[in-house]
């Protein structure tokens, strides 16, 4: 199909720029770990927009998302030495810290953000708008998520995208908490098989 071929061409053209960004992050991390504050500032410059987006998605409120990014980067500065390039990309490491920080803030404030759109809407809107910059990884993940039943799929997405607890997912999907726990695990097993690793 033509649109897909176009998308692949665009994705190939975009790839080097994404690779440029990703390739300079390990060096910035390494220097930040040695106390190089300029490198740390550059790391912030290169990654804070994406991380702020993630914090906004989970916390649902700007002022909390700002706090999350602030707290996360202070933690990143303090823990930069813990980053081990052998154990995954810089971006994944940073996103993990921001997600956990945002989730802790949510638990702490005991209030759930309003107006979270259904996670599948996010995904389907994103994929169906004909965006040309969707990675092969996201396509593969989307394909494998589609193979799951509806509620288990929603449970996985609510947990990852919004940082919801099992209790919250159970309430939202109207299923027992125990079911959420086992279905999350089964879904991950199926995803793992589907993604082929």
């Amino acid at each position, binding site marked *: 199909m033509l649109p897909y071929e176009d998308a692949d061409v665009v994705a190939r053209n975009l790839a080097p720029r994404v690779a440029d960004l990703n390739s300079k992050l390990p060096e910035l991390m390494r220097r930040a770990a040695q106390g190089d504050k300029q490198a740390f500032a*550059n790391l912030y410059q290169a990654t804070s927009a994406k991380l702020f987006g993630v914090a906004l998605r989970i916390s649902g409120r700007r002022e909390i998302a*700002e706090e999350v990014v602030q707290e996360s980067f202070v933690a990143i500065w303090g823990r930069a030495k813990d980053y081990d390039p052998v154990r*995954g990309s810089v971006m*994944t490491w940073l996103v993990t810290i921001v997600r956990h920080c945002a989730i802790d803030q949510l*638990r702490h404030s005991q209030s759930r953000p309003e107006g979270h759109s259904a996670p599948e809407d996010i995904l389907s809107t994103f994929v169906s708008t004909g965006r040309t910059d969707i*990675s092969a990884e996201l396509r593969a993940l989307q394909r494998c998520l589609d193979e799951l039943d509806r509620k288990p799929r929603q449970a996985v997405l609510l947990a990852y*995208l919004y940082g919801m607890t099992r209790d919250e997912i159970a309430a939202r999907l109207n299923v027992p908490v125990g079911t959420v726990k086992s279905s999350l695990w089964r879904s991950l097993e199926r995803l793992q098989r589907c993604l082929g690793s």
Partner: protein
Amino acid sequence: MNYSRPELGERLAADYVLGQMPPLARRRFERAMAGSATIAAVVAAWSDRFAALDETTPAETPPARVWRAIDQQIGPGVRPPVRERWFLWRGFAALAVAASLALVVYIALNPMKPRQLLAAVEAKSGLAAIMETAKHSPADLGLSTMRLGVSERERPRWLRAALLITNQTVPLTEEDSPPAR
């Protein structure tokens, strides 16, 4: 907790990546992860798989106050991120270019013989004696620091700058002077 059982490790890794661990359990798990390449690899694999979902989230630049707060918290001496610094440098650069242009125009419009210039300066600061020692004064250096309204204290620096621009090296202050022959 025994983290070395493979299945338990996998489950905990999944819980960790999906954000299902309470903070204390998470910190314990992170310590275990730091000491076990196996657990770390499982977590990294899961994190990377789900990282693709973050593509669906629009990026948004946080307000500048966020960096300022981080900067303050991690200690003094951090320069602002590149973009802000770039604006700063652009400002400096524009100023420097404007100043150089003004100087060049001034030199072109106000020709003045070095002797006159030196006499004028001598009257105010007694620098002429030092200037006299300059063997390589340009024949027609057109600069009058007097007309520029430069203060007496600043004058030697301006003269030096002007001479440097015309590729002359002239000692203008006691410290700059070569040792007496």
